[in-house]
């Protein structure tokens, strides 16, 4: 029995590596995901907000104020010539945030200056998420300057720390999601394509004439998919670590979750292939099922922000638990929750595999 599974596994592997475009897309998909997310979420400069500054005061004091903002390293400063017509400049350059330092800025620092001696103006594009950030930054610095001028001291101070103990990069929070998604798409699409193809070209027919059973064959496919999934995980890890300095913490629970998830989604693919016979419609159906799941299972968008009816949909999707288990084990180190989520994935895997074996048909009619 094990021999038959291994023979089928070996045959599938050989065929896979010879179909160059299959290999390419299998590797390219997670690679693309990690590069995209890496580029969007890595904090190496990409996370900064552009702040345009028109310094009408152009004085040593205003220079030092700007210098202080620059030192926070959270904004890219772009200076606008003080003689420029601001409205025209905005039309020409479409800045999303402009700070105007008034000509009378220095007035504020003359001892004995009254309240409201000078006013910083921040013009913002309200549709941009960064608007609030920019305003807070400027507000914070103005407050600091006020405090200093009033001769006060910081009674309350703040310090910034990460949500987890280990130092994580922003991208680390997305890697579990990327892995969860990869386990789903790789296995579900493979299974759908291989089953519809083998059924239509008669390979299943030939296999039924040999002693191999359906369960053995399906097991061989799931094992083979594990190899492909771990290959993808390796690509994600290596690129994540090299390009974005990601931290990979693949522990036993995470690995078990990946295995169970691959089994569950391979089986889901079998079930889809059972009901839709031609290859093109079957992969369209797989798309129709996996695509919404990708958005609804809280992998990239936190499910806590969903309206309640959508959140309850998320609760019945297997991918939700895969994402949670991986995030809990790889990022938060919350093993109790990770194992709980993993067990839910295990239940999905068992149910889907049994349903897949019973439902899948090898014959044409």
């Amino acid at each position, binding site marked *: 029995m094990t*021999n*038959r599974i*291994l*023979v*089928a596994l*070996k*045959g599938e592997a*050989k*065929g896979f590596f*010879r*179909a160059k475009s299959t290999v390419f897309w299998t590797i390219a998909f997670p690679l693309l995901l990690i590069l995209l997310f890496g580029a969007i979420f890595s904090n190496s400069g990409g996370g900064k907000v552009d702040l345009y500054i028109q310094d009408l005061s152009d004085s040593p004091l205003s220079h030092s104020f700007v210098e202080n903002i620059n030192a926070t390293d959270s904004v890219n400063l772009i200076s606008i010539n003080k003689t420029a017509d601001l409205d025209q400049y905005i039309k020409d350059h479409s800045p999303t945030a402009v700070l105007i330092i008034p000509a009378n800025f220095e007035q504020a620092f003359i001892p004995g200056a009254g309240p409201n001696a000078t006013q910083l103006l921040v013009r913002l594009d309200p549709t941009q998420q960064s608007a609030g950030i920019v305003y807070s930054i400027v507000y914070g610095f103005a407050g600091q300057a006020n405090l200093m001028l009033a001769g006060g001291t910081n009674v309350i101070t703040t310090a910034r720390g990460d949500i987890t103990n280990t130092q994580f990069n922003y991208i680390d929070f997305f890697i579990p999601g990327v892995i969860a998604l990869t386990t789903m798409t790789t296995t579900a699409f493979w299974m759908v394509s291989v089953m519809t193809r083998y059924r239509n*070209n*008669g*390979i299943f*027919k*030939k*296999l*039924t*004439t*040999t*002693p*191999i059973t359906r369960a053995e064959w399906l097991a061989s496919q799931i094992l083979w998919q594990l190899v492909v999934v771990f290959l993808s995980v390796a690509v994600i890890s290596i690129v994540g670590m090299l390009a974005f300095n990601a931290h990979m913490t693949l522990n036993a629970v995470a690995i078990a979750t990946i295995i169970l998830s691959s089994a569950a989604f391979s089986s889901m693919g079998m079930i889809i292939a059972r009901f839709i016979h031609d290859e093109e419609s079957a992969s369209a159906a797989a798309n129709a099922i996996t695509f919404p799941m990708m958005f609804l299972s809280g992998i990239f968008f936190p499910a806590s922000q969903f309206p309640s009816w959508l959140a309850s949909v998320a609760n019945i999707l297997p991918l939700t638990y895969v994402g949670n288990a991986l995030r809990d084990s790889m990022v938060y180190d919350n093993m109790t929750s990770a194992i709980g989520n993993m067990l839910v994935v295990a239940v999905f895997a068992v149910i889907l595999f049994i349903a897949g074996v019973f439902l899948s048909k090898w*014959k*044409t009619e």
Partner: protein
Amino acid sequence: MTDTVIEVEGLVKKYGQLTAIDGIDFTVKAGEVFSLLGPNGAGKTTTVEIMECLRTLTSGKVHILGMDVTKEPLKIKNRIGVLPQDFNAFDLLTVKENIEYFGGMFDRQLPADDLIKAMDLTEKRDEYFKNLSGGLKQRTGVAISMVNDPEIIFLDEPTTGLDPRARRDVWAVVRDLKERGKTVILTTHYMEEAEVLSDRLGIIDHGRFIALGTPRQIIDAHGTGSRCIISHCDNSCTTALKGQWPTMESKGGDVVIRLENKNALPEIIYTLDRSGGNYDQIQVTRPTLEDVFLTLTGKKLAAEEPEPTADKKKRSKRKAD
């Protein structure tokens, strides 16, 4: 070599209301080439697929190598070889790898290289299956069906969709299997093929045997006797013949007369001679299974290729040899 290896008794298969096989009985002895012959949809494939343990039966008994198909399917599968209809193997595996793949499914396995040699595939050993011509694909299929050194080999329509040369190729393979002492069960809708290859055959129509025996026995029992064809008869010849044999058929100057006894032929020649007319040549033909089928069912068997359904289109994609 006279052991009975297949016993089918009162086999019935129903799909709901439809009766696909309506009670058939036959036995096959070791080393025989036995053909199931009939038009598409007659029940040939259903019958062999029940013997191959791919389908269940509704009633009756089927024993393969002494084992009941309903009780020991895995044991039977281990000892038979099957070339299914519309056979396909893995496109991106080579001939040798495909043989080894399917070999790995069985409890015992012959060396792939021996089979490659036996099927004359040495040159194509490392060729991807997808690059083979239709005839070579079928030969690879036969090699695969022999990989477990089976006692019985089932070939389900092995020549359908092949060009004439590739078809002859497959015939040679069937003869070779017989020489190796294998029992071969062949299904086909080509009468000629069955006649040339089989030791015995059964003609099946609407799920029943309408004839069973050696090709010779069947032709003798149901045949229409030999016929004499006189081509390009002129009017005086035709009139003279018509006087003697009123049942003769005449088509565009060709006259066909059924030879009812052995004196008939000399009488025809004598009549032609007497008429003083002209004719081209005299030809005597033996009846074929095709004629038998026509007599028994009133329809032609393989006069035209079946309607090209989606399934058939795929076959025609097979490259010519």
